[in-house]
Each structure stands twice: as structure tokens, then as C-alpha cells.
């Protein structure tokens, strides 16, 4: 779908009037982003699929309630996803650890296999550390690195100012650095 053809305001109006095709366009546009967010918050494909479906079902059922008050539709969707993921974690709070076996760790081209192995181990360890962070810090990192969003965009989604996001990001990096030191992950730039 070309962005030129996509007038989100118009599509949202039609979707709010019950036009399923219009909602389908929104679904196609945001599926990957919501799936990525849920996937990194849950750590497995099965739950990511289930929760992504629920996010869009809930959005479809409540789209009439969505009004653009400076909050983009994407932020509204992320908030739905955030709430569902929070409920999911609450329901599974008795579990000690979330499986992360199916999180892809892709080797970079031209890397030596041994180096790849070390890198994938480091990435796996880092993912575990990220999952131990408070939810809002996980959200911040996912939106920043997976979705490539700016602090201002993240602020709209998280309901914080750009400065507050920047500050939270700094504190998150500090926290990660301290934990990374305990996990023997190299912080050398090479």
C-alpha cells in the first residue's frame, strides 16, 4: 500500500462508521509494528499471535471511541497492546521465566561463526536482561530500537514529555550497563 494513497484520517472515519475494508487497511498498516511490540514483550510467537489478534479485535470493537486529541492512532493501538500485554504478564506472574527460545538472533553477513556464536549468546543474555526491566523501560527500548521511533513519538505513546523519555532512556541505559557488567558482556566498541 502506497503512503500517498493512504489518508489515515479518512480511513479512520470510515472504519469508525463500521467499514470493515477501512479497518482492514489499518490492520495491514499496523500489523507488523504491533506484532513486533507484542513479540518482544512476550518472547514467544504463539502468545504474540494471540495478543496481536486481540489488540486488533479490541481496536475494531472500540474504534468508535477513538478520537484524535493529539494522540495518533498508532499510540492508541500501542496503548491497547500495552494493556493486553500487562494483563498477560499478570495472568502468568507465577511463571518464573518467559521462554525466549524462538527469538531470532540473526548472524551478520561476513562474520566468523565463532564470533556469531558469542554474539548470539550475548544477545540472548541481553534480551533476558531487557525482560527483567520494568515494563515502561521495556516499552521504551522496543519503541526506540525495533520501531525506530524518536523520543517525541515515544512520548506520545507513553503519555510522557520528550524530556521525560530522554531521562528514562538514560536511566535505562545506566541500569543495563550495571547488569551487563555482571553478565560479562563486552561493552567494547569493535
Amino acid at each position: 500500500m502506497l503512503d500517498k494513497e493512504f489518508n489515515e484520517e479518512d480511513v479512520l472515519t470510515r472504519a469508525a462508521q463500521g467499514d470493515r475494508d477501512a479497518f482492514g487497511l489499518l490492520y495491514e498498516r499496523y500489523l507488523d509494528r504491533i506484532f513486533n511490540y507484542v513479540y518482544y514483550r512476550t518472547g514467544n510467537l504463539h502468545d504474540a499471535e494471540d495478543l496481536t489478534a486481540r489488540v486488533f479485535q479490541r481496536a475494531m470493537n472500540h474504534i468508535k471511541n477513538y478520537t484524535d486529541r493529539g494522540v495518533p492512532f498508532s499510540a492508541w493501538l500501542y496503548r491497547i497492546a500495552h494493556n493486553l500485554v500487562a494483563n498477560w504478564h499478570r495472568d502468568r506472574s507465577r511463571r518464573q521465566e518467559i521462554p525466549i527460545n524462538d527469538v531470532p538472533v540473526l548472524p551478520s553477513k561476513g562474520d566468523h561463526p565463532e564470533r556469531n556464536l558469542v554474539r548470539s549468546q550475548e544477545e540472548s543474555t541481553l534480551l533476558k536482561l531487557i525482560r527483567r526491566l520494568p515494563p515502561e523501560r521495556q516499552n521504551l527500548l522496543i519503541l526506540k530500537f525495533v520501531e525506530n521511533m524518536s523520543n517525541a513519538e515515544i512520548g506520545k505513546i507513553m503519555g510522557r514529555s520528550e524530556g521525560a523519555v530522554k531521562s528514562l532512556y538514560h536511566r535505562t541505559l545506566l541500569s543495563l550497563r550495571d547488569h551487563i557488567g555482571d553478565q560479562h558482556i563486552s561493552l567494547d566498541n569493535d
Partner: protein
Amino acid sequence: MNKLRTTLSDDQISALEAHLAGTLKPVTPPMEIVQRLRNRIHFPERQVIVLRLRDWQRMFLVFGGVMSGMLVMITVARAFFYLMRRHM
């Protein structure tokens, strides 16, 4: 000493961001998942299912009405032929 623990050098920030960028990569959902999700999203809502059930009940009533009407017509026709035969 405490200050060192609560600050990050530019090198540390770059290294951490490089690690995070390498770890938190966008994932493309597998096609079968996209398809399954699409089917789930287009699954009719409860109200639609209720409406369809109502329609089904209506269809059942129409079908029952037609069958009853046909039975009445057959009965009347049989009675008519019976009476005609008696008169002949």
C-alpha cells in the same frame, strides 16, 4: 565514585546502543501467522453471529411454512380426488 556509577561515557552509550540495536531487531511475522490473524480479525463479531442465527431461525420458519403449506395442499388435493372418485 558515586558519580561514576550514575553517569555514562559517550563510548559506553555507543556500545550499549550498538548492543541494543543488534538485539532488538524488527521481526517480520511469518506469513501463516499473518493469514491466521487476518482470518481471526475478520471473524464475525458476536452481534453478527446473533443476527445470522436470527436469519437462520427465519429461514427455518420459512422452510417450515412452505412444507406445511405443501402438506395442506396435498391433503386438500387427495380429499378432492377422493370425493370426485366417489361421485363418478
